[in-house]
């Protein structure tokens, strides 16, 4: 097993992104250590996805900076992309290709040497429990299988940092459990740093070493699940969430989100 290095995997410095007049992420300072599983939580519109998009170089920051695996997301985005894996919210893979063919494309563009590709792909499929589905078209896969295929794909090039945006959203409980189990195993085997967003507080507690709860673009609380429970004076993670993020029923808040989404689409 590789030794988890004690360096910093993700670091942001006053990272900010605004859409028009709406500030989605405000001067975010975040440090994630190598080998950590870090949860980014918060209500819809808190800025989680915008943060992930900036960290994965998909969206340029309005101001501030961020480093992933030691590389700056703005000045060396290719360096970041080489060293990260990304699984987006959408459960997706190319349905017209088999699981193997989907992975082959990514093994190629991530520069996995030709002699190693076959083995690396088969290992990844095996690791994710997809060996039997290797040569089936992905359009015949279930949601949970596609999600596992996506995680297999994101691990082909052995990224130092893996970003997962709501990895278990839209999956049934069994598939959810399986994905979570594989993520834990992945961290154990490879020491990969994982940054995950989720709405599921039980999942956050189960997976994450540390959690940051975002609210309106800033971090409202940060710490291990135990620390957060202590701070909130409760035993329930759901109450921790409500304590720090507040219940999401505020009408003005909703309009903010709707406007932000609309602006994001228009600018985007």
């Amino acid at each position, binding site marked *: 097993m590789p030794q988890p290095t004690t360096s910093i995997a993700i670091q942001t410095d006053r990272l900010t992104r605004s859409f028009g007049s709406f500030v989605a992420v405000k001067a975010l300072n975040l440090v994630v250590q190598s080998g950590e599983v870090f949860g980014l939580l918060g209500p819809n519109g808190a800025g989680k996805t915008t943060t992930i998009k900036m960290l994965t170089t998909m969206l340029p920051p309005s101001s501030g900076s961020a480093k992933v695996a030691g590389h700056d997301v703005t000045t060396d985005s290719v360096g970041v992309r080489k060293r990260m894996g990304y699984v987006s919210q959408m459960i997706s893979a190319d349905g017209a290709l088999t699981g193997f063919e989907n992975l082959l494309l*990514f093994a190629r563009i991530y520069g996995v040497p030709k002699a190693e590709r076959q083995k690396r792909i088969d290992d990844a499929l095996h690791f994710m429990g997809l060996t039997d589905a290797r040569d089936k078209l992905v359009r015949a896969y279930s949601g949970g299988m596609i999600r596992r295929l*996506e995680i297999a794909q994101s691990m082909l090039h052995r990224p130092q940092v893996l970003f997962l945006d709501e990895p278990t959203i839209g999956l049934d409980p069994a598939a959810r459990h399986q994905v979570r189990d594989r993520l834990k195993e992945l961290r154990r085997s490879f020491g990969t740093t994982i940054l995950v967003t989720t709405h599921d507080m039980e999942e956050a507690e189960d997976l994450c070493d540390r959690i940051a709860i975002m609210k309106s673009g800033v971090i409202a609380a940060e710490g291990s699940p135990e620390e957060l429970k202590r701070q909130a004076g409760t035993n329930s993670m759901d109450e921790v969430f409500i304590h720090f993020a507040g219940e999401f029923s505020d009408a003005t808040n909703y309009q903010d989100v709707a406007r932000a989404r609309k602006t994001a689409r228009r600018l985007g």
Partner: protein
Amino acid sequence: MTQPTTRMSPAPGKPRAAWAERFSPAIFLRDTGAIVATELVKLRRDPSEILTRSIQPALWLLVFGQVFGRLHAVPTGRLDYFSFLAPGILAQSVLFIAIFFGISVIWERDLGILQKLLASPAPRGALVLGKAVSAGMRALAQGVIVYVMAFAMHIQLNWSPAAIAGVVLAVMLGAAIFSTFSLMIACLVKSRERFMGIGQVLTMPLFFASNAIYPIAIMPDWLKVVAHLNPLSYQVDLLRALMVEGGATIFGIGTDIAVLTGTLFVLIVVTSKLYPSIVR
């Protein structure tokens, strides 16, 4: 699984290495090839679109060509109207398919496939060129269809290997140009509905403001200017010189290829700059 082998230690502040990473021609070609290979797998699996593509050129050649040929209204020099028309219809059928190519990228964006490609270190230009080349390969099917029809209509085709190679190049360049143009528009409009509208609006002007079905010489002056700016004219000119016996070029084969290659290069550069914006 084995231990990570490609794991690299964080190397803070190495701008020169990053620069080299970005402009490696070997990586550019490798990634272009990966995209093309994947698209070919999909095409081989579902070749039905090749058949549907044959309908339009058949209509133009058999119906439009038959009627217009009888008029003897278009001065086509040494060529009869059918021989004049066939290269134009080949170019047109390639254009009409390629101009809607961009919708595939909006589709891939909505499915979340594009996001993964953009999150990879693959150069954006390679992603775009890979798409363009695969559009070019798909278009070759139309070349075969138009050749079969032209042969059946007793059009005198030029079967010399050099001429055929030139036709392959012209078809692929044309398809690559208009599919990249289409990708560029998709990056700008971002939604399927708006894209379809614009696609419809663009095809006819590109077609009529070209030498596809009549020579530039008979156009009014203002249209001559537009036709000279239209890449389709150069593609048709190249095809007309190579595809049929006795065909001649107006601009010169070298000029045709230079204009087409240059246009493709500019489109690839612009589109690869715009490409990431489609997922934001």
